[in-house]
C-alpha cells in the first residue's frame, strides 16, 4: 500500500462512473429480500433445533463418551480456518505490494469478519452448559488452551472488523449523495458511519497509517488463532492429534479453505453484481495461481503428517492410519485428499481452469472438502482410544451425527452467510476510492 494518497482522483470524472458501477447493486432489491427471507426462515428452523438441544441436552447429538467432540468442533475449526484468508490477502499480499488484491481485499475481510464472528457461537453450540459461558472469564485458568483461543479469536475479530471498516469510510463519504435509489435509513446509516469524512490529505494519511499498523498486527494474531486452535487437539496424547506440525498444518490448510471461499464470492460479485470490469479474468487467474500455491504448501504438510507415522506404524498410529487409508473413513479421506487437494492443484495449473466458472466450481468442491477435512481430523482419532471400548451400548461405538446436530451446524453456516449477504448488499463491496485512485495513478504513469 502506498504511503500517500493523491486525492486528485476526487476531481476525476471517472470517479463518478466507478461509484455508479459499484453502488448499483447496493440497496434493498427484491432478490435480496427473497434471499434473506429464505435464510431467516431456514435459520429459525435451526434455532429450534438448538432449542431442543438446550432442553434435552447433548443426548440429541450423535456424540457419546468416546467421540465426545464431533461435527461442532470440526465446524469450529472450519470457521476459524476460513476466516484466516482476510489476513492472507490483505496483509501478506497487500504489504508485499501486490496491486491485484485491491478489489479483492474487502471481500476477504468480509469473509474474515463473518466466519470469525460465528466461530464463537459454534463453540458455544458444543458446550454442555452454555449458560456457564461467563465462567470462562470469571474462573479462567490461563494454562488452558481454550483461554488462549478465546483471547486470540476475539482479538482477530476486532482487528478484522477494523480492517473492514476503516478503508470503507471514504467510500461511505463518496456514496453520500449517490444513493438516490436506496431507502432513507440506509442513507442515514452511511451518514453516521462515514464519521464526517471530508477527504482531506491529512485524513487519508491517518487512514493509511492506521490500516498499515492493523495489517502488521493482524499477521501474528491470525497465526495465533489457528495455531492455538490446532493445539486444542495437539496438546493431547491421542494418536492422530499428538503431532508437532499441527500448527503449520492447520494454518496452511486454512489458506486453502479461505482462498476457495474468496473465489466463490468473487464469482458471485462478478456475475450477479456485473462488476466484471473490476474483478477481471486477470484477478481470477491470479487467485487460481494463489490457490495452487497454498494447496501445494498444504500438500507438503499433509505428506509430512501422514507419511512419517505411516512409515513407523506405531501401534496406536497404525490403527488410526488404517482407519483413514483403508478403513471406515477411507472413502471420505481419499475424496477429500483427491478432490480437495490433488485435483485442484493439477487442474489449476492449466490456464483454462483459471477462468471464472471453472474456478468457481473447483472452489466450491475445495471448500466442501475443507469442511470434511476438519471432520476427518476431529472424529476418527477419538474413534480409536488407547484402551478398548467395551460394555457400552452399540450406539456409543461409532459416531453418527444426528439430524438436530446437522441442523445446528447448518444454522451456523447460514448465520455466516447472512452476515456476508448484509455486508455485500448494503455496502460497496469493491473499494471505490482505491479503484479511482489506481486509475489516476496509471494515467500519470502512462503520461510520464
Amino acid at each position, binding site marked *: 500500500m502506498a504511503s500517500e494518497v493523491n486525492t486528485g482522483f476526487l476531481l476525476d470524472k471517472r470517479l463518478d462512473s466507478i461509484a455508479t458501477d459499484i453502488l448499483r447493486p447496493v440497496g434493498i432489491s427484491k432478490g435480496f429480500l427473497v434471499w434473506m427471507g429464505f435464510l431467516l426462515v431456514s435459520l429459525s428452523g435451526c434455532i429450534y433445533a438448538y432449542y431442543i438441544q438446550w432442553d434435552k441436552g447433548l443426548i440429541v447429538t450423535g456424540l457419546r*463418551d468416546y467421540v465426545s467432540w464431533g461435527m461442532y468442533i470440526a465446524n469450529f475449526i472450519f470457521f476459524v480456518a476460513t476466516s484466516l484468508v482476510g489476513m492472507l490477502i490483505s496483509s501478506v499480499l497487500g504489504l508485499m505490494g501486490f496491486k491485484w488484491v485491491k478489489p479483492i481485499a474487502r471481500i476477504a475481510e468480509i469473509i474474515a469478519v463473518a466466519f470469525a464472528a460465528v466461530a464463537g457461537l459454534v463453540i458455544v453450540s458444543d458446550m454442555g452448559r452454555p449458560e456457564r459461558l461467563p465462567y470462562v472469564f470469571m474462573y479462567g485458568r490461563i494454562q488452558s488452551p481454550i483461554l488462549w483461543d478465546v483471547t486470540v479469536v476475539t482479538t482477530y475479530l476486532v482487528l478484522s472488523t477494523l480492517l473492514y471498516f476503516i478503508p470503507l469510510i471514504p467510500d461511505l463519504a463518496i456514496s453520500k449523495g449517490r444513493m438516490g435509489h436506496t431507502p432513507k435509513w440506509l442513507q442515514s446509516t452511511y451518514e453516521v458511519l462515514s464519521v464526517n469524512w471530508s477527504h482531506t490529505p491529512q485524513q487519508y494519511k491517518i487512514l493509511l497509517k492506521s490500516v498499515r499498523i492493523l495489517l502488521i498486527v493482524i499477521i501474528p494474531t491470525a497465526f495465533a488463532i489457528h495455531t492455538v486452535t490446532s493445539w486444542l487437539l495437539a496438546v493431547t496424547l491421542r494418536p492422530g492429534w499428538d503431532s508437532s506440525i499441527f500448527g503449520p498444518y492447520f494454518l496452511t490448510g486454512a489458506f486453502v479453505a479461505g482462498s476457495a471461499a474468496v473465489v466463490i464470492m468473487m464469482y458471485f460479485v462478478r456475475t450477479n453484481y456485473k462488476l466484471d470490469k473490476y474483478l477481471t479474468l486477470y484477478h481470477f487467474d491470479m487467485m487460481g495461481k494463489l490457490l495452487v500455491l497454498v494447496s501445494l504448501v498444504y500438500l507438503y504438510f499433509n505428506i509430512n503428517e501422514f507419511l512419517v507415522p505411516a512409515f513407523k506404524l506405531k501401534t496406536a498410529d497404525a490403527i488410526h492410519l488404517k482407519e483413514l487409508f483403508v478403513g471406515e473413513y477411507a472413502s471420505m479421506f481419499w475424496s477429500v485428499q483427491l478432490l480437495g487437494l490433488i485435483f485442484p492443484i493439477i487442474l489449476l495449473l492449466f490456464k483454462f481452469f483459471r477462468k471464472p466458472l471453472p474456478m468457481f466450481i473447483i472452489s466450491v468442491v475445495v471448500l466442501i472438502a475443507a469442511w470434511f477435512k476438519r471432520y476427518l481430523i476431529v472424529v476418527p482419532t477419538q474413534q480409536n482410544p488407547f484402551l478398548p471400548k467395551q460394555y457400552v451400548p452399540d450406539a456409543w461405538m461409532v459416531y453418527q451425527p444426528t439430524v438436530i446436530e446437522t441442523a445446528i451446524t447448518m444454522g451456523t453456516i447460514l448465520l455466516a452467510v447472512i452476515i456476508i449477504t448484509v455486508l455485500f448488499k448494503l455496502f460497496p463491496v469493491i473499494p471505490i476510492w482505491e479503484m479511482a485512485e489506481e486509475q489516476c495513478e496509471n494515467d500519470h504513469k502512462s503520461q510520464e
Partner: protein
Amino acid sequence: MSNNNNSTDDRINSEGEDKNSRRAFFKNFGLIGAVAAAGGAAIYSGYKYEESKPNHDMVKVLTADNRLVEVPRDQIKDIKLDTSELQRKGREGLKGHRFVMVIDLSKCRNARKCISACQGAHHLRPYEYHINTLVMQESPETAPYYMPKPCQHCDNPPCVAVCPVNATFKRQDGIVLIDNERCIGCRFCIAACPYSARLFHWEEPLMSEADKGKPYNIELNVPQKKGTVTKCLFSSDRLREGKLPYCVSACPNGVYYFGDENQDAVTNGTTKETYRLSELLRVNGGYHLMPELGTKPRVFYLPPKNRLFEFKDTRDQDKEKI
C-alpha cells in the same frame, strides 16, 4: 459485730465521750451497710451470671485435622453441610495422605461387583462407568485377562491441565476431582484423558429427580448434573470417614488394595489384610498403565500371572444387562 466495735471504741475513748462514740457508731454502721450492699449486689450478679452460663458438661470431639479436643456440650452447633462448605472441604482434600490403589490382575474374574457398587453410590446408569472392567490382550499369542480400570488419578493429569475453568483439579492427597457446579461441559478433559476415564452426562442423570434439592457433595459427585463431566473420585467421601472405597470393599475376589503411599501401607478390600505397598509392588512386579505417556498414575497393576481360574470372555452375556 457492732457491739464488739462499740466496746472497743469504749475502751479507746476511755473518758466516756458519748458524742464521739455515737458518731463512730453511725460511721461504722454506714460502712458496714455499704459493704453489705456491695456484697449482696456482687452475690446477686454472680448468681445471675451463673444462671446465664451454660453448664460445663464436656464432650470429646475429633477435629478435621485429627486432634481430639473437649468442648462444652451445649456449645456444639450442628452445621448444615451446604454445597459451598462441601466444595471448600472437597477441594482441600485430606491432609497428610497420598492415596494409592493396587489392582491385582491375577485375581480379577470379572465379577463386576466393583462396578455396580460404584454405580449405586454415584447414581449412575449401568453403562456409565467411573470404573469398568475391560478384556485385555496384548497380542494374539498372549493370554487375555480382565483389567478393572478406574481413573488413574495421575500426578501429571492431562485433564486438569486443559480445564479452562478450574472445574477439575488435583488435591493434596493425590485425588483428581471434578466440580460439576463449575464445569461448563466443554469436554476438553475427556479429549485429553488417554485412559478414557471420564464420562459426560449427555442427558438428565439417572436420579436427577430424586436428588433434586440435595446439597452437592463434591466428594461423591451427587447430585450428578446434566451437561457436566463426571469421573471416579477414589470414593473420597468414604476416605474422609476412614473407610475403603466402594469398589474396593465390594470386590469378592481380593483384587483391590487401597491405602496411603505416605504410610507405605495398603489394605486388601476383601480380606482386610494390610500389606507394605513397596513390598507388594516389588514382589509381584507392579506396574503403571501406559507409563510412557508420562501421566504418573496413582493406580498400580500387578500382572495377571498364576491365575487359578480359567479366563472366560463373558462380554456377550454381560452385554444384555446393559
